[in-house]
């Protein structure tokens, strides 16, 4: 798909390009903070920045519904539950763990990340991505909903089942460690 605009819109296209670069910078900077931060809560905040940047990229791809869903589900639900978990389970002092294996782990992470980047990146540039003919016009929530209930109905129902199991399972798992409420000598059972 070739995206072209008429020439009297050149100022707006330039502004849009700058905004696009800003969203990419948000995504990558947030991702860097998320994997390098010493404090766990800073990592969660970096993840939030990165997710908002990805939502902006979704908007640039022309799908505002997915962009708003990204903000609602990831930033609104997943990140907030992560913040709760960080506050409930006090994060370990990851910096204090100066074990010998930490350097090995970082080296391994660098190697794996760079290897993936090199292989997949060469594939990105080796292929000439060509557009296919458009069959449906819409990328609106209406079209997505029709697709969910006709072509993808099995996956849709399975996702709802998975979510139900995840809700029940997380309640059961998180409740188990809490004990029965009886105490013996001040120690909770």
């Amino acid at each position, binding site marked *: 798909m*070739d*995206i*072209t605009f008429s*020439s009297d*819109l*050149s100022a707006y*296209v330039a502004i849009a*390009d700058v905004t*696009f670069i800003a969203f*990419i910078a948000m995504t*990558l900077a947030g*991702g860097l903070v*998320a*994997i390098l931060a010493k404090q*766990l809560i800073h990592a969660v905040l970096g*993840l939030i920045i990165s997710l908002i940047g*990805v939502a902006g*990229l*979704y908007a*640039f*791809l022309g*799908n505002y*519904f*997915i962009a708003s*869903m*990204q903000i609602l*589900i*990831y930033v609104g639900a*997943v990140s907030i*539950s*992560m913040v*709760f*978990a960080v506050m409930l*389970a006090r994060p*370990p002092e*990851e910096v204090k763990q100066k074990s010998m*294996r930490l350097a090995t*782990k970082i080296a391994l*992470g*660098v190697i*794996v*990340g760079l290897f*993936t980047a090199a292989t*997949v990146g060469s594939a990105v540039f080796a292929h000439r*991505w*060509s557009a*296919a003919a458009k*069959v*449906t*016009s*819409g*990328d609106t929530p209406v079209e997505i909903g029709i697709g969910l209930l006709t072509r993808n109905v099995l996956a849709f129902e399975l996702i709802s089942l*998975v*979510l139900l199991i*995840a809700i029940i*399972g*997380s309640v059961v*798992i*998180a409740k188990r*460690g809490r004990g029965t409420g009886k105490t013996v000598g001040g120690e909770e059972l």
Partner: protein
Amino acid sequence: MIQPTFFGNIEVYLLVALILLSFGLYGLISRPGLISMLISVELILNGAGLNFMAFNTFTAPDKTEGATFTLFVMGLAAAEAAITLSIAVAIYRRFRLITADNLSGMKD
């Protein structure tokens, strides 16, 4: 007719998704904590969703499939985050730490 320099190319989106994947792999391997690993997994899943949307917009004939699957990825990520966070809280209650290195058994 003019073409945008950056946001009209699929390669830019693919490279951003690739960098997110590499960041996620690095974090998944190098960080010891459970919640840090979960954050890295979220980065990887976001790269996957960005790939879905970019391929869908630029090369796929049907414009709704990529959005649908990105929604599925989001739902699965939410379920996975809920499970992982409750496991992390339960492990913290029992062992007072949430680093993956110290967890080797399923039952004590």
